[in-house]
């Protein structure tokens, strides 16, 4: 059977043999990573749950400083905005 890519708090509760409210507490305490779909709906990527079970979740660490380099170009290759009047002329 193919594994589900995302789990619900109820799925996790079943797997860990704990209550759903305990799972929700762990999510709120950021012990289990979850996607907050809305105030009451959480989705847990299966990969996150595997990391949790294996004790391999990462704690945030300050990112290292890189070496000096030329500034990156953000938005490169993307079309620039065209004003409505110009766009109308182009369409004409």
């Amino acid at each position, binding site marked *: 059977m193919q594994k589900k890519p995302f789990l619900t708090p109820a799925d996790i509760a079943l797997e860990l043999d704990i209550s759903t409210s305990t799972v929700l507490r762990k999510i709120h305490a950021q012990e289990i990573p979850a*996607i907050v779909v809305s105030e009451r709906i959480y989705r847990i990527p299966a990969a996150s749950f595997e990391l949790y079970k294996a004790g391999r979740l*990462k704690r945030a660490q300050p990112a290292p400083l890189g070496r*000096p*380099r030329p500034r990156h170009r*953000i*938005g490169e290759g993307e079309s*620039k*905005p065209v004003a409505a009047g110009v766009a109308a002329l182009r369409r004409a």
Partner: protein
Amino acid sequence: MATIPELRGYLGDLSAILWNFGAVFPTPTLDPYDDGSYGFEFSALLPGSAAPKPAMIKMMETWEPARAGRYAQVEYEYDFVEYPLDRRRAFHRHDEEDFLREFGVAVHEHCEEVLKKPACDHYMGLPIDGYGAIQRFTILWGQPGPLGCSALRCMQ
């Protein structure tokens, strides 16, 4: 505005969030640029279907010196390309003068229900940060159905 240690912490936070969702990418660095600004860029591959390619989140930001050792964010590019579902969502802030002059907004969004076939080149957007972008992208991740591009306001 943020100090360099704060920016390092912020980038470390974003990385940990994505790693803990199972994303794969090398440790990103906060890079000093030759014009005195700082920034970062990295692409994280998400777990799940890898056909035709894994879904990807790309994060880029640039911060320029402001005052008293603090830096102000001046550009960003947050992109979510979900190849398995053939679609894209993005939040951008770049070429700000052009967008302000033409549309009176500094930021814009992209939305492609079918990858590389946008119904509109640029959509009106609201400012967002890296945390917000990851949250918005991961809500969409792996969920079939429309992205909701038609509900956005096209700039052109």
